[in-house]
């Protein structure tokens, strides 16, 4: 009984990012790099502006010295329901799967970079070079994640390998997938020390993400989407920072 329900259950993976809690520590970035076999970003990569960071922390300065405040916003693939990157790929290398994920099929990609141009959030990354890892890291590569060769696009997958593993496990055991399971959560969510990032199933009314969404977005709270006017309907929901002593309106949001 539980098994069949498990199989047919509709899922919509999503994330809530509470900016009020983000301290800009970049733990999520490092966790992501190691989980997903992202080549080490050396200084040269940043100078070439070709660094690959599936999740990155945007930092803004607010106010005039000495009353300067740092603002952080983690940006990752928004897994839009209406993703602009999907229709432009000539070879279906990027498409929407049944669980609401915007997935990238590395094998199909020929590297037209069309999707990267059409992503308003600029969260798609191109492998300009063959990936290189220092010798000390070579045995540390995650066997569940493809090492991407040069010439193809990549981006945040919501750690789809972890989702698959848990789904498989749950199917074998006949148990439901638990919300907030650390084995299910993407690496960035597990690494976050302040519980800024919350991951879960937006279709499940009891999950933390859908409760947060109902409270903050549907009923009107701090929730918002990035670039709502583009109509991409992302699955990542941001919660505004609350600052009683705010100097001025943030740059956007």
């Amino acid at each position, binding site marked *: 009984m539980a098994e069949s329900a498990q199989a047919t259950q509709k899922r919509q993976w999503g994330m809530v990012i509470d900016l009020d809690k983000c301290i800009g520590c970049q733990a999520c970035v490092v966790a992501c790099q190691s989980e997903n076999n992202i080549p080490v970003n050396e200084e040269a990569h940043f100078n*070439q*502006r*070709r*660094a690959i960071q599936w999740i*990155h922390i*945007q930092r*803004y300065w607010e106010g005039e010295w000495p009353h300067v405040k740092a603002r952080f*916003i983690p*940006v990752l693939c928004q897994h839009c329901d209406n993703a*602009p*990157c999907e*229709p*432009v*790929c*000539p*070879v*279906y290398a990027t498409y929407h799967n049944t669980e609401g994920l915007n997935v990238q099929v590395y094998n*199909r*990609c*020929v*590297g*037209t*970079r*069309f999707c*990267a*141009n*059409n*992503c*308003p*959030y*600029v*969260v798609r*990354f*191109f*492998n*300009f*070079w*063959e990936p290189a890892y220092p010798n000390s890291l070579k045995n540390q590569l995650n066997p569940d994640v493809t090492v991407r060769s*040069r*010439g*193809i*696009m990549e981006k945040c997958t919501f750690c789809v390998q972890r989702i698959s593993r848990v789904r498989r496990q749950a199917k074998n055991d006949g148990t439901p997938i638990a919300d907030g399971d650390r084995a299910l959560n993407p690496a960035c969510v597990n690494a976050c020390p302040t519980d800024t990032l919350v991951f879960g199933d937006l279709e499940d009314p009891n999950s933390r993400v859908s409760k947060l969404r109902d409270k903050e977005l549907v009923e009107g709270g701090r929730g918002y989407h*990035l670039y709502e006017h*583009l109509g991409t309907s992302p699955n990542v929901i941001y919660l505004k920072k609350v600052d009683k002593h705010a100097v001025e309106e943030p*740059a*956007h949001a």
Partner: protein
Amino acid sequence: MQEHIDLDQKQVNETLLKDVVGTPRWWLPAVGFLGMVFLAGVGAFGYLLNKGVGVWGQNRPVFWAFDMTNFVFWIGISHAGIMISAILRLTQAEWRRPVTRAAEVLTVFSLTAALMAAPLTHTGRPWRSWLWIFPYDFERGVWPNVRSAFVWDPSAVMTYLTASTLFVIIALLPDLAVIRDRTTGMRQKIYGFLCLGWRGTPRQWKLQAVAGILLSALVLPVFVSVHSIVSWDFAVQIGVEGWHSTIFAPYFIIGAIHSGVSAVATVMVLMVWLFKWDKVLRPDHFDAIGRLLIIVATVWFFAFFLEWVFALYTLEKPELVLRELQVFKMPYMPLFLTFLVTAFFFPVPLWLFKNVRRSLFWMFVTTISVNIGMWLERFLIIVPGIIRRQPTEFNWGSYHPSIIEILILTATFAWVAMGMLVFAKVFPLVPLFDIKEGMVGRHVIKIGRKIVPASIRE
């Protein structure tokens, strides 16, 4: 004004075939030099294949730069042929006759140059591009995504290439027969094979004329669709604000005609300078193409104006930031000024003077200037647009081309020039039969003391 020099048919043959039958002295060195430049580009491409797109100057978010600029530029040039051949043929403009073939051949070679620029060298894994250009991916059961403008693109360009090649071949048949009759041995055999048994019977002439007119009419929608689709590579996206504009398709088309017709004028000047065909290409022809260019340039400028007005009309921040970057920020400010001057404000006022339109030198300078400007136009649409200085974009960088990109750019120019020269050596670059047909139809009417040129109409 009676400017045409009346040649008899024999003289036409002699003038136009002398370089096909013989070889001018400068020909081999010129082709050799261009071949070397082209080979340098091939070498650069090999390096690119070996190392990856990293050898280019592209970065995130400037994912497209020289590659797409060259692609759009060469597709633009390719619009010359059909503009001259099809539209002027359908409107029965007499001055088209000596120019048609050069324009069509330019179309074919620039289309191949465009294909070199975009699908061939542009993708991250060029050895897999054919999976989407020629959709034979049966093994994996994945067909190309027809919603992608990049799938519309190859089909339109390939259709266009096929149609314009047919155009060239059909117009070549009678001339090939003329060469067949004037050569001996192996060459005669080859030309005899190529002319597909042309004997000049009335039925053959009729079929050839009908095919030409039918192709002209059928190729026009293709012509319009090609650059519309190229513009939709950019405009259907919402990721880049500066590209998402409805005017793009007409804007690109008229821009393509602007650069294409200018390129044809450049080629015409070169034809006179290199092959001494001044008895066939008269100042009249330059005058006519100059007048056409004034109209085309003005319409293009109007489209440019509309694009700008509506970019500012939205008053949306990203759009305003982009426009500011395009016009006022380094290094785009000098490029933008150069573009405006070279594409419009230098050539068009000059073309208003009859003396300029009839001067080979000035037509050469102005039309080269237009194409410099039009290349910059595409560059300025693509690169500053794509930089999109947005809040979620942590790389607010710029873009500099690497030597590899520049070598590939020069290689495309060398390829087209070399192609034209080789073609001119092997086939007559001016259609003999068209010139003769014009001579037969040419007439004058005397009105008082005035002599008015006239032609026979059906």
